[in-house]
């Protein structure tokens, strides 16, 4: 999986990812995704190309439990979020909605860097910088949910949670 990085800072909360003033109005996530991170950068959505990565600092996705947050990231075309650390609810929501969320040392990644992610090899290559970053592996149940394409499909397929791989 390859793409370009969009760098944001620490403690990006879900209100910033998708403001409360929009999220109550619709279930059309493509429409909502136009407001992605709007309160931090009103043109953010226009800067994203299909397949890009969102790269953050610590505590990404803190605050409200709104699942619209990972959904608008996904619908904006972003294929994975890399962060130094994630807030708990966002992390679960990302995996549950089939958005790859990777905890790793993001300090050296800048906007515009060309990145390739190798989940099985547990590594990220920053092609622009010529560096390699190790990634943490996910619990088996999260990998199983991701492989099934999210929690709804996981439950539909197994009729329950499948704890073991």
């Amino acid at each position, binding site marked *: 999986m390859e793409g370009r990085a969009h760098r944001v800072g620490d403690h990006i909360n879900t209100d910033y990812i998708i403001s409360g003033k929009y999220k109550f109005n619709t*279930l059309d996530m493509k429409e909502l995704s136009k407001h992605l991170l709007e309160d931090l950068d009103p043109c953010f959505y226009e800067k994203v190309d299909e397949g890009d990565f969102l790269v953050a600092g610590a505590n990404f996705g803190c605050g409200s439990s709104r699942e619209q947050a990972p959904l608008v990231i996904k619908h904006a075309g972003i294929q994975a979020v890399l962060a130094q650390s994630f807030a708990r609810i966002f992390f679960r929501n990302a995996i549950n909605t089939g958005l790859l969320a990777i905890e790793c040392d993001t300090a050296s990644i800048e906007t515009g860097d060309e990145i390739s992610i190798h989940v099985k090899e547990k590594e990220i290559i920053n092609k622009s910088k010529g560096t390699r970053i190790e990634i943490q592996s996910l619990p088996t149940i999260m990998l199983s949910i991701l492989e099934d394409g999210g929690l709804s499909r996981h439950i539909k397929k197994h009729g329950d949670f499948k704890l073991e791989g």
Partner: protein
Amino acid sequence: MGKTIAEKIFSNKSSQDVRAGDIVIASLDHVMAQDGTSPLAIQAFEEMGVDKVWDRDRVVMVIDHNSPSPNDKVSFLHNMMRDFAKKHQIILYDIGEGVCHQLLPERGHVFPGDLIIGADSHTCTYGALNAFSTGVGSTDLAAGMATGKLWFKVPESIKVVLNGKLGPYVLAKDLILFLAGELTSDGATYKALEFHGEAIQDLSVDGRMTLANMAIELGAKAGLMPWDEKTGTWLKERGVESKCIVTADENAKYSQEVIYNVEELEPQVACPHTVDNVCGVSEVEGTPIHQGVIGTCTNGRIEDFEMAAEILGEKKIKEGTRLILAPASKDIFIQLMKRGVAERLIEAGGTFVTPGCGPCVGTHDGVPSNGENVISTANRNFKGRMGNTEANIYLASPATVAASLLHGHITDPRGL
């Protein structure tokens, strides 16, 4: 080695002996969603291909965030909830009933020792009643509605001990703001907070709910409190028997232990734009205020409004300021009317809005203008939280908010 409250509840709910770090599938006692999260949960539930909710008496939906509906799009989503509730015969609290986090405990849905998930981050509130409750997203909630279960990683716990007696006009809100400043907004991520000490014992159950409510603002999965007679009486008044009280073992293992003496603590204020940007009120005294908010799931209970009424007395709020009052439930609102508190607050210049989330979520009920400063008893002060990125939000206790509205600038309630 002994167990923490969290480890004991997860052991009970997964019928095995588990410790922090274990991944378990646990049985749920209640699942809850509000109008910001229910529509996606309903969609996910339908995608799961399930025809029935696991237990209709244990699924609760609440219309509190945008209540009553401000526009046709929200009305459509509210009706989606009403239709789902009717079809599956689940419990629906419609507009005007109150905030989900007040209604669940108040209407007898929370028992000590329970495991509860809610599609709202402040679901951690019921930790005050010795239950493990935590916020999840809509799809986790849908899985809970479908199966009555959810997978969890048993969290490590941080033991927070608050010793000493609080001074006058220093309240539960000041304690949790102080802790947010100390532990920071991700200081408890993936962990549970377990509160102990004299200052906790002295708090009313309402005050304890204020504290547990904001555990998530430190990143915590839950904010747990031991059960005592006050908890038992509060629950009994709402028809709930305390049958499964959970006590931490003396030799339980905590990832961290923090001990504070809060005797000298001054009222605290969280400054824009993060909840952990906290200082003593003296450091920001004099900051001009345009709007005050008292209420929401953090501080919308009877004692909060009584405190504000006591501070305001027969006086009026400063000319040119606005005070918005959002009771956490209909029952609280009725009590405020019966006790004359509502009348006093209205006479002082306050405006009551529908019991519910009020202006906290930034869609209605008092969106501030550009450059305005708001002082609020709610739980978040993120930029844009109240619907305008050009406004500043300060968080404080009901006493500090009321005192600040009297003078039109941030004011120490102890100096009045």
